[in-house]
Protein backbone atom coordinates (compact mmCIF):
# COMPACT_ATOMS: atom_id res chain seq x y z
CA UNK A 1 0.00 0.00 0.00
CA UNK A 2 2.82 2.34 0.92
CA UNK A 3 4.52 1.59 -2.40
CA UNK A 4 1.30 2.30 -4.32
CA UNK A 5 0.82 5.57 -2.42
CA UNK A 6 4.42 6.55 -3.22
CA UNK A 7 3.83 5.89 -6.92
CA UNK A 8 1.10 8.56 -7.07
CA UNK A 9 2.24 11.88 -8.59
CA UNK A 10 2.48 15.24 -6.81
CA UNK A 11 3.03 16.34 -3.21
CA UNK A 12 1.53 14.44 -0.25
CA UNK A 13 -1.84 16.32 -0.06
CA UNK A 14 -2.43 15.72 -3.77
CA UNK A 15 -1.56 12.04 -3.35
CA UNK A 16 -4.08 11.73 -0.52
CA UNK A 17 -6.84 13.24 -2.68
CA UNK A 18 -5.86 11.06 -5.65
CA UNK A 19 -5.73 7.98 -3.45
CA UNK A 20 -9.18 8.71 -2.03
CA UNK A 21 -10.58 9.26 -5.54
CA UNK A 22 -9.11 5.97 -6.74
CA UNK A 23 -10.64 4.12 -3.79
CA UNK A 24 -14.08 5.68 -4.43
CA UNK A 25 -13.96 4.79 -8.13
CA UNK A 26 -12.78 1.25 -7.33
CA UNK A 27 -15.64 0.78 -4.83
CA UNK A 28 -18.17 2.11 -7.37
CA UNK A 29 -16.86 -0.29 -10.03
CA UNK A 30 -17.00 -3.13 -7.53
CA UNK A 31 -20.63 -2.29 -6.72
CA UNK A 32 -21.54 -2.29 -10.43
CA UNK A 33 -19.79 -5.66 -10.83
CA UNK A 34 -21.57 -7.07 -7.78
CA UNK A 35 -24.95 -5.86 -9.04
CA UNK A 36 -24.34 -7.44 -12.44
CA UNK A 37 -23.12 -10.74 -11.02
CA UNK A 38 -25.98 -10.78 -8.49
CA UNK A 39 -28.53 -11.16 -11.28
CA UNK A 40 -27.37 -14.73 -11.77
CA UNK A 41 -28.33 -15.56 -8.19
CA UNK A 42 -31.66 -13.74 -7.91
CA UNK A 43 -33.48 -11.90 -10.68
CA UNK A 44 -36.33 -10.71 -8.51
CA UNK A 45 -38.61 -13.53 -9.60
CA UNK A 46 -39.94 -11.88 -12.75
CA UNK A 47 -41.19 -13.97 -15.68
CA UNK A 48 -40.64 -13.54 -19.39
Amino acid sequence: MKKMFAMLPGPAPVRVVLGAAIIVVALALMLVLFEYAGRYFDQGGTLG
Partner: protein
Amino acid sequence: MRTVIRRIGWTFIWAGVLVFAFVAYQLWGTGLVTAREQVVAERDIVEYFETERVEASGGDREAPTGSNYGTFEVPLDESGRVIEDDLPTFNFGEDWLPADSPGSGKPLAILTFPSMETRAESVSRKIGLADLDDKLSYVVYEGESLTTLRKGPAHYLDTPLPGEPGNSAIAGHRTTYGAPFGRLNELRAGDPIIVETSTGIHTYVVRDPEVAQPSGNFISVHEGDGWGIVSPSDTWVVSNRDGAWLTLTTCHPKRSARQRLIVFAELVASTPYDAAPEED
Protein backbone atom coordinates in the same frame (compact mmCIF):
# COMPACT_ATOMS: atom_id res chain seq x y z
CA MET B 1 11.02 -17.04 -7.80
CA ARG B 2 10.21 -15.98 -4.26
CA THR B 3 8.74 -12.71 -5.53
CA VAL B 4 6.56 -14.54 -8.04
CA ILE B 5 5.20 -16.88 -5.36
CA ARG B 6 4.52 -13.93 -3.08
CA ARG B 7 2.60 -12.14 -5.84
CA ILE B 8 0.54 -15.24 -6.62
CA GLY B 9 -0.22 -15.54 -2.90
CA TRP B 10 -1.41 -11.95 -2.67
CA THR B 11 -3.53 -12.40 -5.80
CA PHE B 12 -5.34 -15.32 -4.17
CA ILE B 13 -5.79 -13.38 -0.94
CA TRP B 14 -7.33 -10.40 -2.75
CA ALA B 15 -9.50 -12.71 -4.87
CA GLY B 16 -10.77 -14.28 -1.64
CA VAL B 17 -11.49 -10.87 -0.13
CA LEU B 18 -13.41 -9.91 -3.30
CA VAL B 19 -15.51 -13.09 -3.21
CA PHE B 20 -16.25 -12.62 0.50
CA ALA B 21 -17.22 -8.98 -0.14
CA PHE B 22 -19.53 -10.11 -2.98
CA VAL B 23 -21.30 -12.70 -0.83
CA ALA B 24 -21.60 -10.25 2.09
CA TYR B 25 -23.03 -7.57 -0.20
CA GLN B 26 -25.55 -9.95 -1.76
CA LEU B 27 -26.75 -11.46 1.51
CA TRP B 28 -26.66 -8.42 3.82
CA GLY B 29 -25.70 -5.26 1.92
CA THR B 30 -28.63 -5.49 -0.50
CA GLY B 31 -30.95 -6.09 2.47
CA LEU B 32 -29.89 -2.77 3.98
CA VAL B 33 -30.80 -1.02 0.71
CA THR B 34 -34.29 -2.55 0.78
CA ALA B 35 -34.81 -1.93 4.50
CA ARG B 36 -34.04 1.76 4.05
CA GLU B 37 -36.43 1.99 1.06
CA GLN B 38 -39.19 0.18 2.96
CA VAL B 39 -38.97 2.65 5.86
CA VAL B 40 -39.44 5.56 3.45
CA ALA B 41 -42.21 3.68 1.62
CA GLU B 42 -44.18 3.07 4.82
CA ARG B 43 -44.49 6.83 5.23
CA ASP B 44 -45.12 7.54 1.53
CA ILE B 45 -47.84 4.93 1.10
CA VAL B 46 -49.94 6.36 3.91
CA GLU B 47 -49.78 9.76 2.18
CA TYR B 48 -50.68 8.06 -1.13
CA PHE B 49 -53.67 6.27 0.42
CA GLU B 50 -54.93 9.50 1.98
CA THR B 51 -54.56 11.48 -1.27
CA GLU B 52 -56.29 8.79 -3.32
CA ARG B 53 -59.12 8.49 -0.84
CA VAL B 54 -59.77 12.23 -0.78
CA GLU B 55 -59.75 12.29 -4.59
CA ALA B 56 -62.04 9.27 -4.76
CA SER B 57 -64.53 11.12 -2.59
CA GLY B 58 -64.55 14.10 -4.97
CA GLY B 59 -62.21 16.14 -2.83
CA ASP B 60 -64.96 17.37 -0.52
CA ARG B 61 -64.35 14.93 2.30
CA GLU B 62 -61.73 14.76 4.92
CA ALA B 63 -60.12 11.31 4.81
CA PRO B 64 -59.09 9.69 8.08
CA THR B 65 -55.34 9.46 8.39
CA GLY B 66 -53.17 6.36 8.40
CA SER B 67 -53.84 2.80 7.44
CA ASN B 68 -57.01 0.77 8.00
CA TYR B 69 -55.03 -2.35 8.56
CA GLY B 70 -54.91 -2.35 12.33
CA THR B 71 -58.73 -2.38 12.48
CA PHE B 72 -59.05 -5.50 10.35
CA GLU B 73 -58.98 -9.09 11.54
CA VAL B 74 -58.86 -12.28 9.49
CA PRO B 75 -60.92 -15.19 10.86
CA LEU B 76 -58.51 -18.12 11.12
CA ASP B 77 -59.03 -21.68 12.30
CA GLU B 78 -56.68 -23.48 14.69
CA SER B 79 -54.34 -24.48 11.86
CA GLY B 80 -54.07 -20.87 10.66
CA ARG B 81 -56.23 -21.30 7.56
CA VAL B 82 -58.92 -18.79 6.62
CA ILE B 83 -62.48 -19.51 7.76
CA GLU B 84 -64.02 -18.27 4.55
CA ASP B 85 -67.61 -18.50 5.85
CA ASP B 86 -66.82 -15.84 8.46
CA LEU B 87 -65.59 -13.27 5.95
CA PRO B 88 -67.80 -10.45 4.66
CA THR B 89 -69.66 -11.35 1.48
CA PHE B 90 -67.55 -10.45 -1.49
CA ASN B 91 -68.62 -8.95 -4.78
CA PHE B 92 -67.34 -6.07 -6.86
CA GLY B 93 -70.81 -4.47 -7.10
CA GLU B 94 -72.25 -2.37 -9.90
CA ASP B 95 -70.51 0.85 -8.85
CA TRP B 96 -67.05 -0.69 -8.86
CA LEU B 97 -64.38 1.37 -10.65
CA PRO B 98 -60.69 0.53 -11.15
CA ALA B 99 -58.22 2.55 -9.06
CA ASP B 100 -55.54 4.74 -10.60
CA SER B 101 -51.97 3.43 -10.71
CA PRO B 102 -49.55 5.58 -8.66
CA GLY B 103 -47.00 5.33 -11.50
CA SER B 104 -43.99 3.09 -12.00
CA GLY B 105 -41.56 2.96 -9.08
CA LYS B 106 -44.06 4.38 -6.54
CA PRO B 107 -45.48 2.58 -3.46
CA LEU B 108 -48.74 0.85 -4.37
CA ALA B 109 -49.96 -1.47 -1.61
CA ILE B 110 -49.16 -3.21 1.67
CA LEU B 111 -48.76 -6.98 1.35
CA THR B 112 -49.08 -9.07 4.52
CA PHE B 113 -48.70 -12.78 5.20
CA PRO B 114 -50.74 -13.39 8.39
CA SER B 115 -49.59 -17.02 8.53
CA MET B 116 -45.95 -15.98 8.81
CA GLU B 117 -44.50 -14.67 12.01
CA THR B 118 -41.77 -12.09 11.98
CA ARG B 119 -39.01 -12.58 14.49
CA ALA B 120 -40.46 -9.69 16.51
CA GLU B 121 -43.91 -11.30 16.46
CA SER B 122 -42.52 -14.62 17.59
CA VAL B 123 -41.02 -12.88 20.61
CA SER B 124 -44.09 -10.74 21.33
CA ARG B 125 -46.42 -13.77 21.08
CA LYS B 126 -44.43 -15.49 23.79
CA ILE B 127 -45.14 -12.59 26.12
CA GLY B 128 -48.80 -12.35 25.04
CA LEU B 129 -48.59 -9.33 22.74
CA ALA B 130 -49.20 -10.99 19.35
CA ASP B 131 -50.87 -8.63 16.92
CA LEU B 132 -51.70 -8.73 13.19
CA ASP B 133 -49.58 -5.61 12.77
CA ASP B 134 -46.51 -7.67 13.63
CA LYS B 135 -46.98 -10.21 10.83
CA LEU B 136 -44.61 -10.39 7.88
CA SER B 137 -45.46 -7.33 5.81
CA TYR B 138 -43.98 -5.36 2.90
CA VAL B 139 -44.80 -2.26 0.90
CA VAL B 140 -45.32 -3.25 -2.75
CA TYR B 141 -44.12 -0.94 -5.50
CA GLU B 142 -45.61 -0.40 -8.95
CA GLY B 143 -43.66 -1.81 -11.96
CA GLU B 144 -41.49 -4.94 -12.02
CA SER B 145 -38.19 -3.37 -13.15
CA LEU B 146 -34.93 -4.49 -11.52
CA THR B 147 -34.54 -1.01 -10.03
CA THR B 148 -37.99 -1.17 -8.40
CA LEU B 149 -37.43 -4.71 -7.15
CA ARG B 150 -34.48 -3.44 -5.10
CA LYS B 151 -36.97 -1.46 -2.99
CA GLY B 152 -39.34 -4.37 -2.30
CA PRO B 153 -41.91 -6.59 -3.99
CA ALA B 154 -43.11 -5.14 -7.30
CA HIS B 155 -46.46 -5.34 -9.07
CA TYR B 156 -46.35 -6.36 -12.76
CA LEU B 157 -47.36 -3.21 -14.66
CA ASP B 158 -49.41 -5.08 -17.27
CA THR B 159 -51.62 -6.87 -14.74
CA PRO B 160 -54.67 -5.53 -12.84
CA LEU B 161 -54.02 -3.81 -9.52
CA PRO B 162 -54.50 -5.93 -6.36
CA GLY B 163 -58.15 -6.08 -5.34
CA GLU B 164 -59.37 -5.83 -8.93
CA PRO B 165 -60.88 -8.48 -11.24
CA GLY B 166 -58.38 -10.53 -13.25
CA ASN B 167 -54.93 -11.77 -12.34
CA SER B 168 -52.86 -9.29 -10.34
CA ALA B 169 -49.21 -10.39 -10.18
CA ILE B 170 -46.40 -9.40 -7.82
CA ALA B 171 -42.72 -10.41 -8.03
CA GLY B 172 -40.15 -10.35 -5.25
CA HIS B 173 -36.56 -11.34 -4.48
CA ARG B 174 -36.02 -14.75 -2.87
CA THR B 175 -32.49 -14.37 -1.51
CA THR B 176 -31.20 -10.82 -1.93
CA TYR B 177 -32.61 -7.33 -1.28
CA GLY B 178 -34.22 -8.28 2.01
CA ALA B 179 -35.64 -11.50 0.48
CA PRO B 180 -39.28 -10.37 0.76
CA PHE B 181 -40.42 -13.63 -0.88
CA GLY B 182 -37.77 -15.77 0.78
CA ARG B 183 -40.41 -17.69 2.73
CA LEU B 184 -43.02 -18.10 -0.03
CA ASN B 185 -42.43 -21.86 0.12
CA GLU B 186 -43.94 -21.86 3.65
CA LEU B 187 -47.40 -21.03 2.29
CA ARG B 188 -50.00 -23.80 2.28
CA ALA B 189 -53.33 -23.99 0.48
CA GLY B 190 -55.86 -22.14 2.66
CA ASP B 191 -53.40 -19.60 4.09
CA PRO B 192 -54.46 -15.94 3.90
CA ILE B 193 -52.65 -13.16 2.08
CA ILE B 194 -53.85 -9.61 2.73
CA VAL B 195 -53.29 -6.65 0.45
CA GLU B 196 -54.24 -3.13 1.50
CA THR B 197 -54.59 -0.66 -1.36
CA SER B 198 -56.03 2.82 -1.67
CA THR B 199 -59.43 1.20 -2.33
CA GLY B 200 -59.58 -1.09 0.70
CA ILE B 201 -58.36 -4.29 2.32
CA HIS B 202 -58.40 -7.36 0.12
CA THR B 203 -58.17 -10.88 1.53
CA TYR B 204 -56.82 -13.60 -0.72
CA VAL B 205 -56.63 -17.30 0.07
CA VAL B 206 -53.81 -19.48 -1.26
CA ARG B 207 -55.14 -22.20 -3.54
CA ASP B 208 -53.69 -25.57 -4.48
CA PRO B 209 -51.63 -24.65 -7.58
CA GLU B 210 -52.82 -27.64 -9.60
CA VAL B 211 -56.46 -26.79 -8.90
CA ALA B 212 -55.96 -23.06 -9.53
CA GLN B 213 -53.82 -23.61 -12.62
CA PRO B 214 -55.36 -21.61 -15.48
CA SER B 215 -53.24 -23.10 -18.31
CA GLY B 216 -49.72 -24.31 -18.93
CA ASN B 217 -47.74 -26.84 -16.92
CA PHE B 218 -45.71 -26.86 -13.74
CA ILE B 219 -42.25 -28.37 -13.52
CA SER B 220 -43.27 -29.65 -10.11
CA VAL B 221 -45.95 -29.20 -7.43
CA HIS B 222 -45.47 -30.58 -3.93
CA GLU B 223 -48.63 -32.14 -2.52
CA GLY B 224 -50.06 -30.12 0.35
CA ASP B 225 -48.02 -27.03 -0.45
CA GLY B 226 -49.48 -23.83 -1.83
CA TRP B 227 -46.81 -23.33 -4.44
CA GLY B 228 -45.48 -24.73 -7.68
CA ILE B 229 -42.35 -24.47 -9.83
CA VAL B 230 -42.30 -23.17 -13.39
CA SER B 231 -39.73 -22.04 -15.94
CA PRO B 232 -38.76 -18.30 -16.09
CA SER B 233 -40.29 -18.20 -19.59
CA ASP B 234 -43.73 -19.46 -18.42
CA THR B 235 -45.59 -16.17 -18.82
CA TRP B 236 -48.95 -17.98 -18.71
CA VAL B 237 -48.58 -17.67 -14.93
CA VAL B 238 -49.18 -13.91 -15.02
CA SER B 239 -51.62 -13.80 -17.94
CA ASN B 240 -55.12 -12.51 -17.21
CA ARG B 241 -57.90 -14.89 -16.20
CA ASP B 242 -61.49 -15.05 -14.97
CA GLY B 243 -62.19 -14.25 -11.34
CA ALA B 244 -59.96 -12.18 -9.07
CA TRP B 245 -56.52 -13.63 -8.36
CA LEU B 246 -53.21 -12.67 -6.85
CA THR B 247 -50.13 -14.40 -8.29
CA LEU B 248 -46.80 -14.17 -6.48
CA THR B 249 -43.57 -15.05 -8.31
CA THR B 250 -40.01 -15.45 -7.05
CA CYS B 251 -36.76 -17.20 -7.96
CA HIS B 252 -36.18 -20.91 -7.29
CA PRO B 253 -34.20 -22.57 -5.86
CA LYS B 254 -32.72 -20.13 -3.37
CA ARG B 255 -29.57 -18.39 -4.63
CA SER B 256 -30.45 -19.30 -8.22
CA ALA B 257 -32.48 -17.73 -11.03
CA ARG B 258 -32.91 -21.07 -12.82
CA GLN B 259 -36.65 -21.51 -12.11
CA ARG B 260 -39.60 -19.64 -10.60
CA LEU B 261 -41.67 -20.47 -7.53
CA ILE B 262 -45.25 -19.29 -7.89
CA VAL B 263 -48.29 -18.96 -5.60
CA PHE B 264 -51.88 -18.54 -6.74
CA ALA B 265 -54.30 -16.91 -4.30
CA GLU B 266 -57.98 -16.14 -4.87
CA LEU B 267 -59.78 -13.02 -3.67
CA VAL B 268 -62.42 -14.06 -1.14
CA ALA B 269 -63.15 -10.79 0.68
CA SER B 270 -62.78 -7.12 -0.05
CA THR B 271 -63.47 -4.47 2.57
CA PRO B 272 -63.81 -1.22 0.65
CA TYR B 273 -62.36 1.88 2.18
CA ASP B 274 -65.09 4.30 3.13
CA ALA B 275 -63.69 7.79 2.59
CA ALA B 276 -66.74 9.47 4.06
CA PRO B 277 -66.72 10.00 7.81
CA GLU B 278 -70.10 9.74 9.54
CA GLU B 279 -72.06 12.93 8.89
CA ASP B 280 -74.34 14.31 11.58
